[in-house]
């Protein structure tokens, strides 16, 4: 249907039959009109799409599975906008070509991999950071009496750009190091790059983790399918029931302008820590569950991170795929810990600053990253100091030490999250000031009750869940009890789903 025919010719809005609006090209695009801003994971569209993809996957011959997944992934990305799809396909083609080029001309490995990384990261930089950079330069220029020299590019980062860029950089670097052979099947490679369960918000999947599965797609395993459905529903529960219940309280604290009491500020900060965990780990569970229903295994991305007894352990439990990516492709190439203490601390600061910037083009994100870098450096220094004292070995292995470490880590991480969530440095300062110097009044806390309940559930979950306990418990259930559990989870979604907040990590 041509929408342009509804516009009067004299309006000036019709240009070569395309509806042009300032807000976004997406509004005038076919995908934008029928899918809005894309297929959210918690939506009817995604559920029906997933069912269709699962049916197609299991009814297709094994050799056609990569093509089926490519088609599904392409369609999925198209719903978010043609630009994002085109960019991803273009980037994937560059990565594939680079891999092949390195395989055929090993002597050109270095220029090829450098060129590919520059192109991929440059693409990310252009779409994600150009506006930020120009805005800051304009602000500097305004201070110097030269306002508005540079026009704002007005580029909005397409969905998934942060994740697929890192995934493709991992591929070309692994191939250049000889850690993984260049993929020679273009369709299979595109299926890897566009794998819809993880393409939007991770986990960042290394070639070794997915390409072999695409080369030899698994046969149908009913038990794996069953546990994958449970994982999917459990992830939706975490997102819809827990994370979305916490969102309003967090918004009240971080997005308001009025005075804050200390209890409210602390509840808001802790609620955000819980919200982000439930949102992101919930999404990851849904991604892994969807992949499992398709017969593929994605690596876990979270291991109860708030039980970490140190900041270093936190980064082995939180957004695991990103932290290991940063370790392998930034920290270690910078020298890691092999160039002396001072250089190690610098490497940690630089790597985490980059991590902050990857999450968003904003100074609050840079501060958040630097804080974590500083914490990691401090932890390293403290660990080195303590390691030299043999007498402290028993103390370090004791329960009080670990509990104290866990509490301190949670405190530091929660304080750093204030910068992650706050819309500006000033807003972060407001919350932090309230946390430490705000009045201790408890009236007005009744409105935080849903958030406190959700916080309690998250805390209880961390306290009782050990390792893979939920999955082991599920596997021990009879089919009928599993069916009841599925129905209970779906009913919980029915009763507790608030107007859904967007997946937080989808904006990266």
């Amino acid at each position: 249907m041509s929408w342009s025919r509804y516009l009067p010719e004299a309006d000036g809005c019709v240009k070569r039959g395309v509806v042009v609006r300032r807000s976004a090209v997406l509004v005038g695009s076919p995908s934008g009109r029928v899918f809005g801003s894309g297929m959210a994971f918690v939506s009817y569209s995604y559920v029906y799409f997933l069912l269709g993809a699962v049916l197609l996957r299991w009814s297709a011959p094994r050799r056609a599975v990569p093509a089926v997944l490519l088609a599904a992934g392409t369609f999925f990305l198209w719903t978010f906008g043609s630009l994002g799809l085109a960019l991803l396909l273009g980037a994937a083609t560059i990565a594939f070509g680079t891999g092949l080029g390195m395989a055929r001309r090993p002597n050109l490995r270095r220029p090829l991999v450098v060129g590919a990384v520059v192109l991929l990261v440059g693409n990310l930089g252009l779409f994600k950071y150009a506006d930020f950079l120009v805005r800051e330069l304009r602000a500097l220029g305004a201070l110097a009496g030269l306002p508005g020299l540079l026009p704002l590019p007005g580029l909005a980062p397409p969905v998934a750009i942060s994740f697929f860029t890192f995934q493709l950089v991992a591929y070309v670097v692994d191939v250049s190091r000889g850690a993984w052979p260049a993929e020679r099947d273009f369709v299979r490679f595109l299926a890897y790059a566009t794998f819809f369960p993880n393409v939007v918000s991770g986990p960042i999947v290394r070639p070794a983790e997915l390409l072999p599965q695409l080369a030899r797609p698994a046969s149908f395993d009913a038990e794996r399918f069953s546990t994958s459905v449970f994982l999917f529903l459990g992830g939706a529960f975490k997102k819809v029931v827990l994370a979305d219940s916490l969102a309003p309280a967090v918004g009240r604290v971080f997005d308001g302008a009025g005075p804050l009491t200390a209890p409210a500020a602390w509840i808001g900060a802790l609620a955000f820590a819980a919200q982000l965990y439930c949102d992101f780990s919930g999404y990851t569970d849904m991604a892994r569950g969807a992949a499992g229903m398709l017969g593929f295994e994605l690596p876990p991305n979270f291991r109860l991170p708030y039980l970490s007894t140190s900041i270093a352990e936190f980064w082995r439990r939180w957004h695991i795929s990103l932290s290991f990516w940063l370790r392998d492709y930034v920290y270690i190439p910078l020298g890691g810990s092999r160039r002396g203490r001072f250089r190690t601390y610098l490497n940690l600061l630089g790597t985490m600053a980059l991590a902050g910037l990857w999450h968003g083009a904003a100074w609050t994100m840079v501060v958040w990253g630097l804080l974590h870098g500083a914490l990691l450096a401090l932890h390293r220094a403290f660990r080195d100091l303590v390691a030299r004292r043999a007498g402290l070995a028993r103390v370090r292995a004791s329960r009080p030490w670990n509990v104290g470490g866990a509490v301190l880590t949670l405190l530091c991480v929660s304080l750093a999250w204030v910068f992650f969530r706050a819309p500006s440095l000033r807003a972060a300062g407001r919350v932090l000031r309230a946390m430490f110097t705000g009045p201790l009044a408890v009236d007005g806390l009744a409105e935080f009750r849903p958030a406190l309940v959700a916080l309690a559930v998250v805390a209880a979950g961390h306290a009782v869940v050990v390792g893979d306990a939920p999955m082991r418990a599920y596997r021990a259930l009879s089919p009928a009890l599993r069916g009841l559990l599925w129905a209970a989870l779906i009913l919980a979604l029915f009763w507790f789903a608030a107007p859904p907040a967007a997946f937080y990590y989808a904006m990266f």
Partner: protein
Amino acid sequence: MTDERTNSDGRRAGDVASPNLSADGRRGRLLDLIGTVLVCLVVLAGLDLAFRTSALRAVLDRESHYRLRALEYAKLDRPPDVVFLGDSRTLHSLDPVAAEQALAEAGLSLSAYNLGLSGAPPMAQLTLAGLALSREPPPRVVLLFVSPYMVSTRIDPTLSRESLHTLYGLRDLPWMVAAGARVEDILDVLTSNLFRALAYRGRLVRLVFDRQWPGPPAAMGVKGFLALGRVPPGVQADRARRRANGYRTELSRPAAAVGDEMLGYLDATLRRLQEAGVAVAVVNTTSASALLEIYGPDSIYDEYLARVRAVCAARGVPFHDHLRNPVTSDADFTDGDHMNGEGARNYTRFVVRNVVLPLLGAAPRARASGTAAAGPPSVGSFRVEPAPSVVPRGPTPGARPVTPDPAAPHPSPLPFPPERFDRGGPGGSRLARSPADASGTKPQA
């Protein structure tokens, strides 16, 4: 961070899980999975069936204006010949009894019904059209009344999408596709028709968590029309001003824009009715004068008007602009949008004579001499000079609205030029007719 280049969870690269199971083992697992799925579906379907047949559902249906309207329409002894669709402006401003009287005066014995619903934009009108067509025989004439707020991108989605869960059925799905509806909306309707409890989710959640107990049955009025009482002029003016202030958010650029979505539903509604052989017309609703101020050049009004006209022209459907019509004045309104009973009667008669009768091919009764029977007057947009002589001139948009002095006696009509128009109804003309026409006496000072 450590330097060990281990896989994130310790597995070796490329490990692919491959359980060694016999065929019986695999079959057993498959049967277990099927059993799990069946138990889940049976539980959910059972709960849904229990809800469908429950007294609670019946009570919630009666409480909902939308649902009860559909139920009442389905129970009508005889399907109506003329149907009015629209939002609350239609609900309170189109009197089917007055319409039937006006039709009878033209020699036609036809029935009328008001299917207006509060907050019902074209999205709701599409399914209401389906409701109207669900009875045999279908209506002969359907009028769609539209307002600029209906197509604003700033319209409250909770209200504008109410019909998706209360009215839409599986029969509407193809028309939603024709309207270019979002996939999520289509699937929402599909799923909530399969599992009916989903359609009541919001209400059930409010019932359980907020203890919002079901209220009394919604008012249905007479033939769907809900008459409002007259209010003092000062009250009307005050309400109209407040309403105008409220509408600014939905109409003022640059924040507000005309959304394609509702235009798509309007187009699909017209097409659905035309394909069923129904004569259709679209009418731009009238407002009290206080609202005219917000229809100025900084609003989406002109674009709304132009685009609705374009939709109608594309479908060959007559479009009538009643924003400033010769029969209504502020005295006919209870606020900015909704007429009182008497105003509704007069306006309905105007609509019958100028819109319904031409659609039926019946000529209105001859007018008083000197007036060309050139069809309904078109006032155009605010940027277009209105046609001279027969077109009433109301307050200029953007100018101070004409607000009756609360201390004044019964409000004087808007300063329309003398209009020779035989309304034939009780009470005579609302306009400043030539004083010599009114009862033959000279006007009072």
